């Protein structure tokens, strides 16, 4: 329909892809983008179109690119249940509280679920440790780094 050879179309698509992914990856500003494509010698109208294409799609392209980075299984959700063990084969008349947890993780589009258990004192310890972790982002040290790295 375009009346051009297959090779030309392929090169065109590849070139466009490369232009958009590299620009999105580096998150270059409008001005830098314009300067870069001006060297190619296209018409003003085409340059404007390319810039628009870049700005409209870069967020989505970046989302797709972020999936390619090396990753560990990531947290999806957590379910919990309180149990009290009353007896076992080796000991009767017990009162042993436990918290049973089902941890849902995502790894490369697969969802895994693991069943884990912990006792009340460990649970409180976990909460304390993780709250400390959350608090770290608010410390001066972290705030300074975040500010200086933009």
């Amino acid at each position, binding site marked *: 329909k375009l009346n051009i050879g297959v090779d030309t179309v392929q090169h065109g698509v590849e070139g466009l892809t490369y232009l958009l992914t590299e620009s999105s*990856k*580096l*998150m270059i500003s409008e001005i830098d983008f314009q300067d870069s494509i001006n060297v190619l010698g296209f018409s003003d109208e085409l340059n404007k179109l390319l810039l628009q294409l870049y700005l409209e799609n870069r967020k989505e392209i*970046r989302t797709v*690119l*972020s999936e*390619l*980075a*090396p*990753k*560990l*299984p*990531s*947290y999806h*959700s*957590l*379910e*919990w249940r*309180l149990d*009290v063990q009353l007896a*076992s*084969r*080796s*000991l*009767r*008349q*017990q009162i*042993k*509280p*436990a*918290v*049973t*947890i089902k*941890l849902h*993780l995502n790894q490369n589009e697969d969802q895994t679920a*693991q*069943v*884990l*258990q*912990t*006792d*009340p004192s*460990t*649970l*409180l*310890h*976990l*909460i304390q*440790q*993780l*709250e400390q*972790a*959350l608090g*770290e*982002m608010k410390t001066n040290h*972290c705030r300074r*780094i*975040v500010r200086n*790295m*933009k």
Partner: protein
Amino acid sequence: ILDDPDLKDIDPTVLKHCHAAAATCILEAGKQKADIAAISTCLEDCKLDKERIEQFCTEYQKNKDALEILLGSIGRSPLHITDVSWRLEYQIKSNQLHKTYQPSYLVTLNIENSDLGSHPDVSFSCTMEQLQDLVGKLKDAAKSLERASQM
């Protein structure tokens, strides 16, 4: 027991039987959480004299708590969380994507399995919001625990 010099005059088979009998008796008593009266009655039925019964019961009483703890720890359960480690990092770039600027947490749950001794730890990454969700749910569980223990 077979190497004990005080017992070397006794036939080893008899010794083994005695040991097995004593062990069975102690474990059954521990399992059923029997009190001293029940044990005494049981031993009386076995025609042991009063002095021996008293000695046995005193020794049993001394070790009762340790025995219960040991018996309670036998058995299967899901993998047990013993501790947690975390790492906070600030992502700047990857080879696929530059200027990411996002904080990210890496959480490791240390796991112990009573059957096999140890088990690989469970590690996962999460964002700040996800960690807040996780901690929120754990706090719900803890609150439930507190309410249940007051009933």
